[in-house]
């Protein structure tokens, strides 16, 4: 009987010794951050009366944060300085993830029903506003996205400087009352979260 008991005990101990010996951590694998936007490019192009871009008029304004979201670095943000009073422009936005070398614009366009840009800041909203934005694209449900739009600069602007805030909402309710207004200041109320919230300075 005693021998049997010892056998039983060793039957328990032996497999355990194997498990103890065979378990070690894996070598870590670097992850390429997929959710990061390291550059936002606003491409303005002057348009004629038929809203057709004038050749050679396009210029880019960029906000960059090369390391993505990390401590110690603030984004570098260009100033929008080439807009002229009384003119109309087409605005296209492109987004880039420099860490994964990916064009995020394509992902946003593919998931367009879940994304929408809002355009805020003193240049667009409030008494001193001198820019007017209008969406010029739509998602699969006919709601605006904002990857492409038109901007008109007020001819008799009372102010010639302000802020231009671009917010990209993800997973918001586009049917929410007021959500189709590009200058919707209470965009949070439509739910979702901000994938992007960047403020440019604008001077005429």
């Amino acid at each position, binding site marked *: 009987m005693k021998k049997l008991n010892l056998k039983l005990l060793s039957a328990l101990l032996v497999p355990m010794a194997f498990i103890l010996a065979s378990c070690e951590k*894996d070598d870590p694998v670097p992850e390429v951050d997929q*959710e990061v936007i390291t550059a936002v490019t606003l491409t303005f192009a002057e348009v004629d009366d038929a809203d057709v871009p004038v050749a050679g008029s396009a210029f880019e304004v960029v906000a960059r944060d090369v390391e993505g979201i990390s401590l110690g670095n603030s984004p570098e943000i260009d100033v929008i300085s080439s807009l002229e009073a009384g003119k109309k422009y087409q605005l296209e936005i492109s987004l880039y993830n420099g860490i994964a070398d990916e064009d995020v614009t394509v992902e946003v366009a*593919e998931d367009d029903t879940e994304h929408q840009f809002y355009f805020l800041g003193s240049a667009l909203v409030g008494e001193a506003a001198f820019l007017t934005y209008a969406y010029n694209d739509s998602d699969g449900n006919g709601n605006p996205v904002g990857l492409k739009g038109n901007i008109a600069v007020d001819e008799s602007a009372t102010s010639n400087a302000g802020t231009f805030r671009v917010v990209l909402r993800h997973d918001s309710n586009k049917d929410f009352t007021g959500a189709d207004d590009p200058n919707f200041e209470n965009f949070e109320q439509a739910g979702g979260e901000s994938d992007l919230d960047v403020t440019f300075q604008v001077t005429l």
Partner: protein
Amino acid sequence: MLHKRDKSNIIVFDFESLFMAIKSLLLIQILITIFCNTAFSKEPCNFTVRGKVIHDENNEPIEDAYIWINELEKGTISDEKGNFRIDDLCKGSYSIKVTFLGHQEEKKKIDIERNASITFRMKGDDVLLEGIEIHGHRDAVITTSTVSSLTGRILDESRGKNLGEMLKQISGVTTFTTGANIAKPVIHGLHSNRIMILNNGIRQEGQQWGSEHAPEIDPFMADEIAVVKGAETVRFGPEAMGGVIVVNPPSLPVSKGIKGEVNLIGASNGRSGTAAVNISGGSDKIKGLGYRIQSSGKYGGNIRSPDYFQSNTGVRELNFSGALGYSSTRLGMELFYSRFQTTLGILGDAHTGNLSDLQAIIENGRPFREADFTYDIVNPRQEVIHDLLKAKAHYHLSNGAKFNFQYGFQQNQRQEFDKRRGELNNRAALDLELFTNTLDLSYDHATRKHWNGSVGLSVMQQVNNNIPGTGVTPLIPNYDMYNLGFFAIEKFTKGHLELEGGLRYDHRFVDAVRFNQNQELEKKIYTFRNFTAFLGGIYSISQNITLSTNFGSAWRPPNINEQFSQGLHHGSAAYEYGNPDFKSEQAYKWINTFSYTGNRFNFELTGYLNQINHYIYLNPTEEQLVSLRGTFNIFQYEQTNARLWGLDLTSNYEIHPNLEWYARGALIRAKDMVHGNNLPFIPVDRIESGLTFKMKQVGKLTQNRITLSNLAVAQQKREPDFDFAPAPSGYHLWNMSMSTYIPIGDNKLNVGLAVTNVLDTAYKEYMNRFRYFSHEMGRNITLRIKYNF
């Protein structure tokens, strides 16, 4: 001036905040007075003997002990609290005999001149009963520290809840929740890695560092859930500084026959259904061979707050466990396997993009998105699987000593899915696998007159791996961890006095490696060494009054996230970073309990003081981080010295054989002693009281009970310097429940109906991380059916 006021806050008991609670008790008190004055009319043969049957070695109550009065040939059986009563006794002298399987018979002579009360302390039968040792297989916690447990009826009535919610019935235990489905138990203000959970004797090793990581435990597996409120590092190893939760399954059958239990539970809020089956039996061929298989599942949808549905708060759970055991005179062995598997939805609005998102939703006070009821779970969600394999054996040596062996293997897989773009939605943003091997060897020396004790060795080996391919820089590194501990515990028992002391030495080695956000390889090696000790005692002043005290030290090495965190926490729009150079936390907890067990009145008061040096906490810096995504607050893990103290109260009074009143309450204070601040997320003062109407027999229905209770929770007035929003106001909840047992042949059916938050009160709980933008659950009606066969 400000400093002075702060100081007075910690010393002066806050009467104001408890005033409303007391007011609510007044009505109940009036009822008591009315009943007391009408319930008793004197008759010659109406004396009652009441008493309690407990294990001599640990004061745990004994259920189903047989109490017999020889002269009258009349007897009864003790209930789940070990209590019994025998009514209608005439004046005279009687001899009472108490028997319980595996224990020596106890006899007492009593003279009845008035109602009497007796406590029987049952000594374990070392001369083994029919060659089969019963009690030795139980993992009952034997300690001089304060222990509260949920067993029997109380456990039955809380079936269907998660572990955290169940434990709230113990005073001093609350929960730290993340939304409606994730609840972590909090003992005396401490949670996560500062407390320990023993799942069937094995220390639970999941990703416990996260506040949104609920314990991976199926409460249906247990027939006893106990909370040890003292610092128990010596017995159980590092981290048990706030207390230990012990989840024990029933002992395996040792004689032939099959029995089982089926539970069916439906709840209105979340429209959830829960089912659980438990079958156990003993072999008729091999004596001492027993088995048990058990399974449970839950399916629930969106939780409703009084004014809205909380989006994406569904839950799925599927659990299984099996055990096989063999028991003979000398040898006991058990093999156990369990799997816990869950999918949890997380309130979508909780995932905020940046600080202004968070501020907007806090200002709104409730989720922005209107949700309907659905069972569907979308991102953000968690998928967790926890497997446990355990082998256990003990062997009685011929000199009376005992050798114990226990080995456990755990595998914890945690995947967390975030709201992301396109295909990434199907890839976990956090994907971790944690393997833990534990080996515990101990030797209980033979009892020598007043002394017994044990020495032991415990080995733990752990591996944490990030599963590559998440597309997110991992929050915590891959690591190997080894922990070796030695301990010795000795107990002295004489008469009504028990003294116990112990020592332990631990050595821990951690080897962690990862790629940080800048793709640089980081490698860190740590060694932690620590001595811990405890000393405790229990003294029974009289049959009714017991005093216990326990002073223990404990330690906790810094969590891997406290050392390595560097990244965004979307729930709090915070950029958190850790400190790889932290020292271990050192705790000293002193806990004292006064307990009175009377004829009709029971009372237990526990007071404790816990000093934790090098206490690690997340400190909001005043800095902010600006990124293309917006602004974030910067939080940094720091160390300070913390002091926590508090009181737990439990009391019940039998107003009339048909009517019982109970109350339990807890008060807790916690302070950062270096900066003079209050610690964040400390449970608020609370008191719960209720009246239970009991009827032993109504037709075929037995043990009928109807309970109406009120929970009053104050506002947290001791807030930390920084918080996103002020503490929510206090609240009152009314709850009611009824239950009955119906015998069907030899079998038993238990039916229970409970309504929580009867008035559908909209309230927020300070201890919910989502309180900033969501309310707690509204009214919930639960129907439970349990069938024993």
